[in-house]
């Protein structure tokens, strides 16, 4: 039997990991209560767990996680599902498992609109910022290796990367498109920032699960596939990505990409597109 389910059954508790500023997947909304797209998806999974193990009462614990502790917390059994905005890749799959893709992102550049930079060429000789530990670090280094001449600085988190861009320390900020969109939406003046046209490799996001528990993964995947088939997934998407969201009511205006539409039609956790 699935060890995760066994534990949930024994303790009568399922623990969900959430992020504190991964908008709109998982973040602190009004009164610092966690909300978000991934948390909504997770709620459906929890319902299904409850049904499957036939408990009338299943307590749900919300555990805040960050990039330093999410893996250890999953490996030591504290967290059963991470409901964040975490991307999947080959190296990570050796340590944990991911559900079918719930989102597809690709890295992009954001600049100050006033800078007049038109494309990646315009960044040559300038300093650009990426966030420590994000996929963008690798992409940026890859672009540089192909002949670009910008210098890379790495900020501690997205907010500081954004501050570097704002304060003029960096000419551009490379990150997953959805993250950039949410940062821009919350800026005092969103129109002050612009995207460069280039897009890069697509990466799938998913809910993170403990490794070596295929039965548990099958359960979660089943729930998500059901949502995608019924159209509920698309509704949830619209709620978080194309409507005003808490706490301040900004609208990300981030319609579903073709790649994600493809994955909704044919759910899969494959890495390549």
């Amino acid at each position: 039997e699935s060890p995760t389910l066994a534990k949930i059954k024994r303790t009568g508790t399922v623990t969900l990991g959430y992020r504190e500023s991964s908008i709109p997947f998982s973040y602190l909304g009004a009164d610092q209560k966690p909300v978000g797209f991934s948390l909504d998806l997770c709620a459906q999974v929890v319902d299904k767990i409850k049904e499957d193990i036939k408990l009338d009462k299943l307590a749900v614990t919300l555990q805040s996680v960050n990039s330093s502790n999410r893996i250890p917390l999953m490996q030591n059994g504290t967290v059963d599902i991470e409901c964040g905005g975490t991307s999947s890749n080959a190296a990570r799959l050796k340590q944990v498992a991911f559900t079918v893709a719930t989102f597809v992102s690709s890295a992009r550049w954001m600049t100050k609109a006033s800078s007049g930079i038109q494309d990646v060429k315009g960044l040559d000789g300038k300093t650009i910022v990426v966030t420590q530990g994000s996929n963008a670090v690798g992409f940026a280094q890859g672009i540089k290796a192909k002949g670009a001449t910008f210098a890379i600085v790495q900020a501690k988190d997205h907010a500081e990367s954004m501050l570097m861009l704002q304060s003029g320390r960096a000419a551009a900020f490379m990150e997953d498109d959805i993250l950039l969109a949410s940062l821009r939406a919350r800026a005092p003046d969103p129109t002050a920032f612009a995207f460069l046209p280039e897009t890069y490799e697509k990466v799938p996001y998913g809910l993170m699960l403990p490794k070596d528990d295929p039965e548990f993964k099958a359960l979660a995947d089943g729930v998500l596939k059901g949502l995608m088939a019924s159209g509920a997934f698309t509704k949830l998407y619209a709620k978080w990505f194309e409507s005003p969201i808490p706490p301040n009511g900004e609208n990300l205006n981030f319609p579903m990409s073709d790649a994600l539409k493809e994955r909704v039609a044919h759910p899969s956790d494959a890495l390549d597109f």
Partner: protein
Amino acid sequence: MNSLDFSIVWQALPYLLHGLAFSLQLTVFAFLTGLGLGIVLALVRHLKVPVLAQLVVGYITLIRSIPLILVLFWFFFLVPILLTPFSVDGRPIPVGAGPTAFVTFSLFEAAYYAEIIRTGLRSLNKGQFEAAAALSLSTFKTYRYVIIPQVIRVVSPILLTQTIILFQDTSLVYVLSVVDLTGAAVKIAQLNGKLVEMYLVVALVYLAICSTASQAVAMLRERQMRTVRTR
């Protein structure tokens, strides 16, 4: 930089106060238990208790050599795994972040306090021990009534500095996903993009609290000096 907007601070005030409360709780708890344990460790060393004294030296050296954040990390993640043999289903037993923070900070600070107490013990005149022995006070009573009260007075400024550091270090509980004052400020700042405002406010809060504490200790000491060492 765009003009600063501190309105966010008012909105977030309850959350910030909540964080501050945690910082203070953790500081007070770790100060009390750390000092208690630190005194014990220092005494074990001072009395040269066989074997234990060496263990204490090893413990203190080890703890002082590793960044607190890594100590927290290892406590948080290794203890559940080490507890695995005691669990029913062979899976790690999670220990909450709160208890981890309180226990780890106490154990960590104990090593530092122990060294401070030892400095104080070294500065005391041997005659104090001899006088207590001549009065037939037991070892425990000698330390309890004669030695430790004097040591605490001697080292109070160093204890204060260490405690100020402890108060500042509470921000490291972010690896445990616990929210203290700094953590709360950072979170609000990240959600709203108001980093500068929040950090300035936190800096002022720390400056105010720590300066008040250090002023209080300085005054307390001056008073003691007046009674204890007039000549």
